[in-house]
């Protein structure tokens, strides 16, 4: 009994401290929101084109670098920070559209391995270009003045920027839902997810649709990178953990399900946040364990459909 008690106090002693639990919960949710921006794009792209975009992590990283450069013009200035966010989203929208048209479009008819290899090649290329342009060292982006410091809620003080991330993530989720469910373009995207050949046969310009979806997915990743820039080290290794987490999220949530991506993102974000407290060196294993568990009970993911 005594060893169990010791084990508990060593790994789970923090449970008795509501402030720590609340803070960690908030960190988990805000990280989950960032994760949602990435995995929603990954999921959308997969749904429409059946391509698993391994390069999604470097798109996120590129968004963070764009924000780094733009925010550098006015450190801690709110205006420049907004511009940095726009640069992340719009810059990656353009980059995504260009990549899709030049490189992926010829490959839609090819086997999976070629598509995967191509997105993999992008990881290598962008990963090295980033080193050439911004150098190998890590950079920091300042939190804009308005969002620095902390805010009190429920009797606990939280970092304001984390709160901002959550609010922003919710707004993006609502906007995405609105686009997908209340616009004609959204209907086409959902139709393509179900049966893209039928959609093409019915006279829709699927080429433009595919480009649009890829660009939107890239823009979401870029926006995520720009939002993450003030709370991460912006360096050439940034994309690695991001893409792994995003993959775990889409496997848990179910591929091609944006709602699933939201739920799974929050789940992974929260599990990671508390995992770090309980088992600092083995936190990553927890998300994988969660994924393995989901795969055993529901192989198609929480919100996916069995094939």
């Amino acid at each position: 009994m005594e060893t169990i008690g010791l084990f508990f106090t060593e790994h789970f002693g923090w449970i008795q401290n509501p402030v720590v639990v609340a803070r960690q919960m908030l960190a988990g949710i805000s990280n989950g929101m960032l994760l949602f921006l990435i995995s929603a794009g990954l999921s959308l792209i997969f749904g429409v084109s059946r391509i698993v975009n391994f390069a999604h992590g470097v798109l996120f990283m590129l968004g963070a670098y764009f924000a780094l450069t733009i925010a550098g013009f006015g450190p801690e200035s709110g205006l420049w920070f907004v511009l940095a966010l726009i640069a992340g989203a719009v810059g990656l929208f353009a980059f995504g559209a260009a990549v899709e048209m030049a490189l992926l479009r010829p490959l839609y008819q090819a086997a999976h391995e070629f598509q995967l290899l191509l997105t993999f090649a992008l990881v290598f290329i962008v990963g090295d270009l980033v080193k050439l342009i911004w150098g190998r060292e890590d950079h920091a982006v300042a939190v804009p003045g308005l969002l620095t410091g902390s805010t009190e809620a429920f009797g606990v003080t939280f970092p304001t920027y984390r709160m901002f991330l959550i609010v922003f993530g919710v707004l993006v989720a609502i906007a995405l839902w609105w686009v997908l469910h209340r616009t004609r373009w959204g209907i086409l995207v959902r139709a393509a997810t179900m049966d893209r050949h039928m959609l093409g046969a019915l006279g829709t310009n699927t080429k433009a649709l595919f480009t649009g979806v890829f660009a939107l997915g890239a823009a979401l990743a870029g926006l995520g990178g720009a939002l993450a820039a003030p709370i991460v080290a912006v360096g050439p290794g940034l994309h690695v953990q991001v893409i792994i987490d995003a993959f775990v999220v889409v496997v848990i949530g179910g591929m091609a399900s944006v709602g699933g991506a939201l739920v799974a993102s929050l789940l992974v974000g929260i599990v990671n946040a508390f995992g770090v407290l309980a088992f600092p060196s083995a936190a990553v294993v927890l998300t994988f364990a969660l994924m393995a568990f989901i795969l055993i009970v529901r192989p198609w993911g929480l919100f996916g459909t069995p094939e």
Partner: protein
Amino acid sequence: MNRPSLLAIAILAAIALPLGLTDFWTFIAIEVLVFALYAVSFNLLLGYGGMLSFGHAAFFGVGGYTVAILVKHGGLPLAVAFPAALAMSAITAAIIGFFSVRRIGIYFAMLTFAFQMLLYTVALKATGLTGGDDGITGLKAAGALSKPIYYYWFALIIVIVALALMHRIVHSPFGMTLQALRGNPRRVEYVGINVRTHQLATFVLAGTIAGLAGAIFAISSGNVFPGWLNWTASATPIVMAVLGGFRTFIGPMVGAAVYVMLEVVISGHTEYWPLIMGVIIVVLVLMMPEGIMGMTRRIRDGKR
């Protein structure tokens, strides 16, 4: 010339090769052998089974780390460490395969990827056993094998035996079923064959051979690093197989040789080898999807 005599010439050439090489190039030759074996083991999955694994480096890494840990921490001879590496990579492949072959296609690629990253994390965090970020260095074979040329011949024998075994398997009824499965899994299932068991058996075989390749390489390079298990490492066998042409048995070997030579030459001139490799992959995928073997075959057929 018929095939057996071509094969005999190739083997003789491989035996004689290190006689004319410096130690540096002998190590490169060992690297070519290792990656040829690794790429062919990967191609059992992709080329024959139609299963795109994005985590094949997991087994290469497990084989390498097993040998490294046993030799370095346990002081055991290769005669014990190599079979142990085979066993460890087979067990790892059985566990990962059990979960992954549940979902073939894109899901399979992602699952194998995720499991490999899990092992990467273990290699990075279990510092007591794996040395963490620093890896395990200073590995050496005892006795005659510590000379590069003897180690080359030692590796050559293992690689030839393993390649012959795989060649035999893909042309056996098991291998034929595997190829039928690639074409139409549902139909194979209707004939009464257990598709999953077949895929799992192939996955374990491929993983075990990859572990063997990793074991050979751990001793020849003298060290293992977590980077062996990193996700970029899993692109290597895919690029090799596609570069050489994954529709043939020999293609991945050709791809491995070309890849290793390119890496040696290019990374000697620039630290941006990944960038150049990325560009090579893009050209490969868009311009010559059949790989080197496919190209040569087309040129030969065109001349006829």
